[in-house]
């Protein structure tokens, strides 16, 4: 190995500046109405929105409530609206915003308090599509004494892998007007998860899932607005999954038709 000096950018992070962040507050036990509150803080090039919220919580106003955990864009906790667009707080950097930054709770979900929304409906929709491997008659049942894996080639894996990357952050639901218009719509993430299992070569549950997908509130409520895929922080492309689901549902119907 050569012993040359490593040249990597030693970052000039410390472009510190003062920024204003407006947060939509809602404290149901003290006021029925939401209101805007502005905070001022020093930020630098590496300050994420989550860092800013944590700064508010610890230094300025400990009553601000929001969810967060991993701060590396994998746990899906910290979704909020940033200037009207759903984003993960930990993956949003204040350096990218000129002027005012307005933070609101995720759209289309009931607000519990401040930036915390009620995600129960999202969880219900996820559970509705049977998002687990269904193999009612596996060729080789699981035997702990002689455990054996299924076979799955990298090509077969590649067919669904992208759709398995959803972190359940719910941003796509906030981006989806069809969910906003009708909360019974199963929505992007749930339909994507169903499609992920339908595409899995190890799974045989497509027929069971289709009864959920082939409903008005299933794939057919989607009009391919496509904003869900724009805001997805993990590039899952839920819009593609949902619309591939329409093709599957059409096939399913055709088969049902012929079988009578």
């Amino acid at each position, binding site marked *: *190995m050569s*012993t040359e000096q*490593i040249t990597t950018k030693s970052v000039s992070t410390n472009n510190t500046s003062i920024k204003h962040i407006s947060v939509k507050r809602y404290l149901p036990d003290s006021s029925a109405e939401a209101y805007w509150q502005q905070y001022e803080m020093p930020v630098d090039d590496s300050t994420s929105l989550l860092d800013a919220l944590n700064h508010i919580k610890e230094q300025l106003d400990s009553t601000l409530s929001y969810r967060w955990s*991993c701060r590396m864009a994998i746990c*899906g906790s910290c979704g909020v609206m940033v200037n009207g667009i759903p984003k993960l707080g930990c993956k949003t950097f204040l350096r990218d915003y000129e002027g005012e930054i307005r933070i609101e709770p995720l759209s289309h979900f009931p607000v519990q308090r401040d930036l915390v929304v009620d995600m129960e409906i999202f969880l219900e929709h996820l559970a509705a599509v049977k*998002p687990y491997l269904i193999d009612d008659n596996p060729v080789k049942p699981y035997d702990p004494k002689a455990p054996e*894996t299924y076979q799955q080639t*990298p090509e077969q894996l590649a067919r669904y892998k992208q759709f398995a990357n959803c972190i359940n952050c719910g941003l796509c639901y906030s981006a989806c007007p069809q969910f906003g218009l009708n909360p019974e719509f199963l929505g992007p993430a749930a339909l994507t998860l169903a499609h992920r299992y339908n595409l899995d070569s190890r799974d045989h549950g497509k027929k069971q899932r289709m009864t959920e997908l082939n409903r008005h509130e299933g794939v057919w409520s989607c009009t391919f607005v496509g904003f869900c895929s724009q805001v997805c922080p993990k590039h899952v492309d839920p819009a593609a999954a949902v619309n591939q689901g329409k093709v599957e549902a059409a096939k399913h119907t055709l088969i049902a038709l012929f079988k009578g």
Partner: protein
Amino acid sequence: MQQRDFDIVIVGGGGAGLRAAIGAAEHAKEHKTPQRIALLSKVYPMRSHTVAAEGGAAAVTSAEDSHQAHFDDTVSGGDWLVEQGVVDYFVHHAYQELVQMERWGCPWSRKDDGQVQVRRFGGMKTARTWFAADKTGFHMLHTLFQTSLKYPEIERFDEYFVLDLAVHEGAVIGVIALQVATGELTLLRAKAVILATGGAGRLFRFNTNAGIVTGDGMAMAYRHGVALRDMEFVQYHPTGLPGSGILITEACRGEGGILLNKDGYRYLQDYGLGPETPLGKPENKYMELGPRDKLSQAFWQEQQAGRTGKFGDSDVVYLDLRHLGEKYILERLPFICELAKSYINVDPVKEPIPIRPAVHYTMGGIETDPLCETSIAGLYAAGECASVGLHGANRLGSNSLTELLVFGRLAGEQASKRAAQTEWADTRLLEAQAERQQATLARLCDGEGSGESWVELKHAMVQAMESGCGIYRTEEGMRHSLETMRQLRERYAKIRVNDTSKIFNTELLECIELGYGLDIAEASCLGALERRESRGAHQRLDEGMQKRDDVNYLKHSQVFYQGEAPAELRWQDVDVRFSAPAERAYGDAGKGGKV
């Protein structure tokens, strides 16, 4: 106050908790003893920190590998401070658990022929780490969560924060939890309780852990008299991003990444890990594939010698992946690329990644027997919160994801077995304990505390832990940290929260977590101070304590809670029935040792 009855209550919805829930449900089904299982989590289960695990899960897989080899790696990796019977059970049950995950749909990375692929990992003799790109924990957690939806007997209590265990006459009888959304207390009566609450990395300022990793379950068990064991062993992961501490997986090195100091020199060869392995040809247990404790210690030495570079305010070394080529990097390590680009604006395909060690894992925890049961009857623990005795003084990368499956299931089955033979305790016993909790909450919210700020206390705690209980430790530093913890615990008694709302009061939760944290931080400092030797992740600079001392310290530390008084430490023998302690060596030096 809501009151519900369950056969089994599981606290924690991460990998271990979910696996325990499924294990219990399957066990109950098999034995035709229908059981209701409650799964409580302070966050939605898929937010649990298992989600952030990247590299993989270890199990003996190839024909050339053997249980003996995995056993030996784990025992020597843990510097012989492991329960060898437990390790033996672990290595024999690892494979079946990973296959079970596969049968549940986990998208493991594959070889061209459709078989599961394995990769190299630090301290492991051969490649035996199963992986799903570099998001293994994420895929495992989501697979477990989604699979758990199949079981109607598992009732989830998402965003329920457990305040305390209810214990009566040496047996657990339930838990008391706070529904975060409403602030209401909930009493869950149970015949068995499993703690699966994860580690306590957030005791330290600079760490790879999520904000929720605050050691809650450890503190709950500890306060009821269960020993915290080996808490002085805290793992520094050698490769965290500067600034945030975000984890850059060991798999980078398993796939052939190399570590360089600021001169572009592969410094690990100077720390008993050499000779240098050729570029792109990583060799197990050599150089970058040494164990985490050794690598983090080597960083510290380089830092002392002034051979580290700078990134922002951080001293760093460099993880170079460039020789692996763009295609390979993007296939095997896509998440790493995303993280490095987002958080430090470095593209690993084009530049070496600046990295530095960060606190990653709590080797110690709630002491359990080999069947995951604690000293309280009916109380089990599994996963990072537990000290079942697998990791000893240093955990090997990719053993913990497998651990939460093997011991999560075992704990679930044991709890199910117990629940089938036990009756619920009298509800009034729980109510009495709940009233105590009610009073504690009231004191925090509108008590007469002097208004100590949790923020200040928290910062003091993480600073003290970092300065006194870092990669290298001194008597003086640890003593100071221990003193600090004791003072902070006193100050904590006067703490008050500003936010008195009942609805989603995260300030209140932070305060309670801080209380948990201070108790276990004291245990950690005490164990560290009293262990007057160097072993695994516990390295002392003090004269005469820089070597392992098997005569006096081939023993687990056990710390016992004493209320407001200082905690007490005892020593416990280690199970060394299969493998006598030997020299722990890597690189060429390790060649002559045990096979």
